[in-house]
């Protein structure tokens, strides 16, 4: 019970810390709408020649684009940068002095931020986008329930990947390069930009063994009802499995990271 109260409090401060920036965030809604519009017209042009590409119909693709980019505002996080900054400016010291699980602290603090983003970005984007573009509601009997669950899992999966990336700041001076590389991997291989089924077979084969496609591609397929029920369950289970694996890797890496910590002077 005490633990729950602790993580609830982490979420609270993650949420509250962004209240001061809510107008900035609302401005970002506009940029996201622009990106969605660009993608929308791009994909419409692509589908002009053929009715079905890589298993997607045009109307599925349109929904994929809008829901995918909206969901991205929710499952994105800044954990890698927060850790990188803290290591660089030395404030990591203050984190180490708190008797708490650093990894879960970041997960839940960022989840508070994600809840904030859901209210101030995801929802406004979906509302406006659904007025501008034809999007379908979640498909099937389980879609409306399993899709939100799956996106929450996406958040924790992506949080884990960012956490591992952030810990790299303990080992290398060039954080920025590592962070950009991670971001690129997530953008491309999560399936936000292009559905995984558009990739060559060997890339799809490789991605089966990597966590990235469980961030966006898998939940979006669930939303669109493109998978049979057994595959839906499998997808959600694999998300959970990856969250556990990455969490464990984070715990392990943390022990090496803090041994590397060398802070001269202040």
């Amino acid at each position: 019970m005490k633990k729950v109260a602790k993580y609830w409090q982490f979420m609270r401060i993650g949420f509250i810390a962004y209240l001061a920036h809510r107008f900035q965030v609302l401005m970002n809604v506009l940029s996201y709408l622009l990106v969605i519009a660009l993608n929308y017209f791009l994909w419409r042009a692509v589908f002009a020649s053929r009715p079905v590409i890589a298993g997607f119909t045009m109307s599925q693709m349109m929904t994929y684009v809008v829901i995918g980019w909206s969901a991205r505002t929710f499952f994105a996080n800044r954990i890698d940068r927060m850790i990188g900054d803290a290591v660089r400016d030395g404030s990591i010291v203050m984190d180490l002095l708190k008797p708490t699980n650093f990894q879960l602290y970041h997960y839940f603090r960022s989840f508070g931020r994600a809840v904030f983003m859901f209210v101030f970005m995801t929802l406004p984007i979906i509302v406006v986008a659904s007025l501008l573009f034809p999007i379908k509601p979640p498909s099937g009997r389980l879609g409306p329930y399993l899709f939100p669950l799956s996106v929450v899992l996406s958040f924790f999966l992506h949080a884990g990947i960012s956490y591992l990336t952030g810990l790299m700041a303990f080992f290398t001076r060039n954080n920025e390069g590592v962070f950009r590389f991670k971001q690129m991997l997530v953008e491309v291989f999560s399936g936000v930009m292009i559905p995984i089924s558009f990739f060559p077979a060997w890339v799809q084969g490789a991605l089966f063994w990597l966590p990235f496609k469980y961030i966006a591609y898998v939940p979006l397929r669930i939303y669109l009802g493109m998978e049979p029920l057994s595959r839906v369950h499998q997808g959600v289970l694999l998300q959970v499995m990856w969250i556990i694996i990455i969490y464990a890797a984070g715990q392990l890496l943390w022990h090496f990271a803090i041994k590397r910590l060398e802070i001269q002077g202040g």
Partner: protein
Amino acid sequence: MPIIEAHSLSKHFKRFRRRPGLVGAVKDLWHRTYEVVRAVDGIDLSVERGEIIGYIGPNGAGKSTTIKMLTGILVPTAGSLAVQGLVPHKDRYRHVRTIGVVFGQRTQLWWDIAVIEAFNLLQKIYEIPRDEYRQRLKKFNQVLGLEDLLNIPVRKLSLGQRMRCDLAASLLHNPAILFLDEPTIGLDVAVKASIRDFIRETNRQQGTTVILTTHDLSDIEELCSRVIMIDAGKLIYDGGLRELKERVDIPRRLLVETIFPINASKMMLLLKDYRLGITALDPYRWELSFSKGRVNLPQLMQLLLDTLEVRDLELEEPAIEEIVRQIYDRGAPGDAR
């Protein structure tokens, strides 16, 4: 049993040495040379429960590095360390529950959220019983005057306000040991005084052990009964403040600026009854140096004000660096324990 015990505690850093110029930079790509910095080099410490210890030394002496080992942030290179029977870096989680830390240059609060939210979060993190938390918060509010600050985001606090909040935050869980690293740096006299009172009271009422690093000798004089001095990673003094003062001549300087020029012989004659070092910076400005305690300062100042047309008087307290130099020059007063 001592609450903190260290034997030959050391922390060495490996520092990458860059070679100069373009050729050097290219060489560095292939083969890097490192130098070893002995930040803390074999120190022995023994601290009893309830002591207030002034841990002093010049910049870069190894004070902060020691504190970071004692708090479990840095892993010692060599030596043994036990704080309340725990090895700090191995038992970090259990260890940090029982200590409070204030780093003057940092905050343990969260920039974007209000002070009270940060306190509430700390209550959850340290699992402080609610009644105990409320009671302590109420007391801190009174003593440190936090009432008006609680709803302000930390980033909007002034340095003095933030330091009061940070100090309260570090004591919410009633730690057995309080580490204070430069807690009064950059603060005005009134805030300094209230912070010192608060530390003294906490030590008296709760029996909190306090380890204080500072550059401000008046912090030490007001709070500490024992002084540990470190320079270049080694302990150079460990003992009472009084003994330190008795054996080391702590020089103070009084700068006198007059409206009219004064010649040297007149000055010498005027001050012949005092044991002073007299230096003329120019005919208008004089530097009088003397040992603390050997000269009746109010009387001396009265004399100067009565007989000279004084424009300005300025009293310089000795810097820690000066005391360290004296210890070196005269040999350690009382061998380091």
